């Protein structure tokens, strides 16, 4: 049987609580479009997908234009550099997987994309990260690449001048 994964939460008084563990296992398919994207990522490529109606380039792509509800089959290879559109500084550790605090989470608008990609910013003090900052991907060693955006360890400043607010204000 499943084993009684229960504990005595109530000592000797009236029973007021119970423990309800749930565990379910799945095998999830990424779908055709996202699989194309993730196969690209496994080769160090960032393949956006373009809407045939409005020409917006989605990064990361999810296989459809959420505005028009149509498949985005045309692929556009994008450079691994872009502009920070917004960010936050994380000061509270909440996961073993996250870096040491403080660290910076940002939305990065790749050059040529119409949606921004989530990533970490490193290579500079957290307090100096700003909107408009130009960044480039710092990839993990090639032998560690897999079908996962975790292949990009973080984004680092390129040293270019900051982008004008007008250049990214529509993407925030």
């Amino acid at each position: 049987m499943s084993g009684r994964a229960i504990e005595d939460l109530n000592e000797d008084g009236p029973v007021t609580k119970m423990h309800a563990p749930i565990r379910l296992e799945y095998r999830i398919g990424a779908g055709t479009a996202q699989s194309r994207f993730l196969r690209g990522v496994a080769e160090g490529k960032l393949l956006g997908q373009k809407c045939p109606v409005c020409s917006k380039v989605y990064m990361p792509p999810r296989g459809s234009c959420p505005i028009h509800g149509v498949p985005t089959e045309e692929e556009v290879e994008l450079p691994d550099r872009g502009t920070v559109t917004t960010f936050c500084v994380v000061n509270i550790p909440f996961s073993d997987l996250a870096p040491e605090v403080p660290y910076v989470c940002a939305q990065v608008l790749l050059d040529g994309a119409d949606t921004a990609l989530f990533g970490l910013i490193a290579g500079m003090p957290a307090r100096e990260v700003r909107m408009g900052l130009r960044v480039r991907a710092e990839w993990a060693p090639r032998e560690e690449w897999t079908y996962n955006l975790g292949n990009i360890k973080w984004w680092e400043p390129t040293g270019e001048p900051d982008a004008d607010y007008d250049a990214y204000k529509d993407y925030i």
Partner: protein
Amino acid sequence: MTDVAVVAFAQSKHVAADPNRNEVEMLMPVVAEALEQAGLEREEIGFVCSGSCDYLLGVPFSFVTALDAIGAWPPIRESHVEQDAAWALYEAWVRLQHGDVDTALVYGFGKSSLGDLHEIMTLQLDPYYLEPLWPDMVSMAALQARAYLDATGKTERDLAEVVVRSRAAAASNPNAIVAGTTTADALLKEQTTIAPLRTSDCPPITDGAAVVILATADRARAISERPAWIRGIDHRIEAHSIGVRDLATSRSTALAAGRAGAADDKVDLAEMHAQFSHEELIVRDALGLDDSATVNPSGGPLAANPVMATGLIRIGEAASRISAGGGDRAVAHASSGPCLQHNLVAVLEGE
């Protein structure tokens, strides 16, 4: 009361497992097909409502991402129910009564192939007395099947006859997964899985989606040559615990059918959300159908069961038969919860 009709119905080609398409990819072509049938542009739809279950995907709020299949910009009027999309259709029907919008698109989708559906359905049970024991979906149904057989004197052969008829009907349904000619004798040779039920008494694991478009009075007549008018619709729910219910009957179905006016006139066909063979017999009794009504001409959920769309498909199948002239009056039934806890009945008529 504003007259509302089903004017379009599309469904995916259901399969046991569709690993190559995620939910959005599965839905997009079905939405497009329904819009094309109705001759409507996306932005003409006044209200969108969906039904799905996050546990099927194992991702909280996964229904939000399904909106990518609809196109939600500029922002649309939208709602969602965490149950079969037949209830999304009910919400859309209520929404259309306001009179400010004249079309609604309803969709339901589910991929049961990703996890273990039989255990996922355990999570809809009371968490204190039932869920810790992990009675699965088939076990719960089997308890009701036994109660029905005990109360009526019917036998496992009666259940097998339901399966035989369902599979024969499904032979003409291109979306059916389980179809074809068989006999009760052949089915009864199978061992029971959870007695008194056999695998053949249970619905197939199915990935699929369905879309129904509703329209009000004049708009419906403009869209469809023969709209399937919703003349009555009602849903009723019983207590959750199966230990306080009479499992051999479905009082909630009977009440909903009465309120919807199912027995007010001759019924040509009925599509029932009977996932298990005995449920068809219980629901048929509760709807008060006589032998002249064709039951589950699509093959019903025993032929294909894309969970969270199955109930909506009953309404769509019934409506498309009315619109195609295959009948003048149909009853569609949808169910939710363990052992037919919650039941919806819609009466559809041609003009």
